[in-house]
C-alpha cells in the first residue's frame, strides 16, 4: 500500500532524472579530464534516453519509467575543433557541467517537496 505513494509518475521520473544527472556528471568529468588528449571523442548520455523518458511520462506508466536505464554513448554531433582529432570544447563542456548541476538541484528540490507534502499530509503540521 505504501508503495503506491512512491510509485507516482512524477516521483519515478524525478528519480530517473537524478540518476541521469549523476551519470552525465561522470561523462562530463571524463570529457574535461581528456580535454588535452589527442584523438579523444566526447561521451554523453544516450540521446534516446530523454525521448524514452518523455514517452513514458506521457503514457503515465511508472513501471516503464523505472525500467529505463540511462547509458553513455559517443556524441556523434560533436565536431573536432583542432587537428589532433579531439572534439572537446572547454567552454561548452563547462556550460554542460553547470547545466547538469542545476538539473540535479531541480530534481532534489522536487523530491524534497514531494516528501515534505507527504509529511504534511501525515502529521498535519507544516514544519
Amino acid at each position, binding site marked *: 500500500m505504501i508503495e503506491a505513494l512512491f510509485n507516482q509518475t512524477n516521483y519515478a521520473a524525478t528519480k530517473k532524472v*537524478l540518476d541521469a544527472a549523476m*551519470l552525465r556528471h561522470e561523462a562530463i568529468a571524463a570529457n574535461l579530464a581528456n580535454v588535452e588528449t589527442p584523438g579523444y571523442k566526447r561521451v554523453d548520455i544516450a540521446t534516446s534516453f530523454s525521448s524514452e523518458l518523455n514517452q513514458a511520462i506521457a503514457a503515465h506508466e511508472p513501471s516503464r519509467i523505472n525500467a529505463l536505464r540511462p547509458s553513455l554513448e559517443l556524441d556523434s554531433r560533436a565536431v573536432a575543433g583542432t587537428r589532433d582529432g579531439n572534439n572537446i570544447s572547454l567552454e561548452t563542456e563547462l556550460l554542460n557541467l553547470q547545466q547538469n548541476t542545476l538539473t540535479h538541484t531541480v530534481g532534489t528540490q522536487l523530491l524534497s517537496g514531494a516528501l515534505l507534502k507527504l509529511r504534511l499530509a501525515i502529521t498535519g503540521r507544516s514544519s
Partner: protein
Amino acid sequence: MLNCLNGITSTAAALNAERIRMDVIAENIANAHTTRSADGKPYQRQQVVFETVLQNQPGNITGTPVSSVQVARIEADKHPPILVHNPGHPDADAHGMVAMPNVNVHQEMADMLVASRAFEANLAVVRNARSMALQSLSIGKRS
C-alpha cells in the same frame, strides 16, 4: 568505499596529469639557457604525451565506458638546437657558434596557461560534484 563524488577518479587523474605537465614546463623554462646537460649536449625541450585510460565499469551501467587520462610518456622535442654566434662562450665551437636549447620561452608560457586553465576546469568539476552530493544528502530534509 562509498563513491559519493561521481567522476572523481577521472578528475583526480586529470589534475595529476596537468600537474606533471606543469612540472615539465617549469623544467623547460628553467633550462632555457642550459648549454651543457648531463650528456654534454645542450638541453633538449621535454614534452608530455597524454593518453586515455578506460576505467573499470560499474556492473549496472551499460554503453560507452567513461575514461580517465594519464601521462603516457615524456618525450624530447626533436627540433635541432638553436645556433647563436657568441665566440666568448665557453661552449662555443671553432666558428664561435653556441648550440642553445630548442626551448621557446613564449611557447612554454602559452602552454603553461593552457595547462592551468585545464586544471581549473577540473577543479570546477570537483566543486560541482561536491554540491550535487550535498544536495543529494539533503533530500527530504526540512528546509
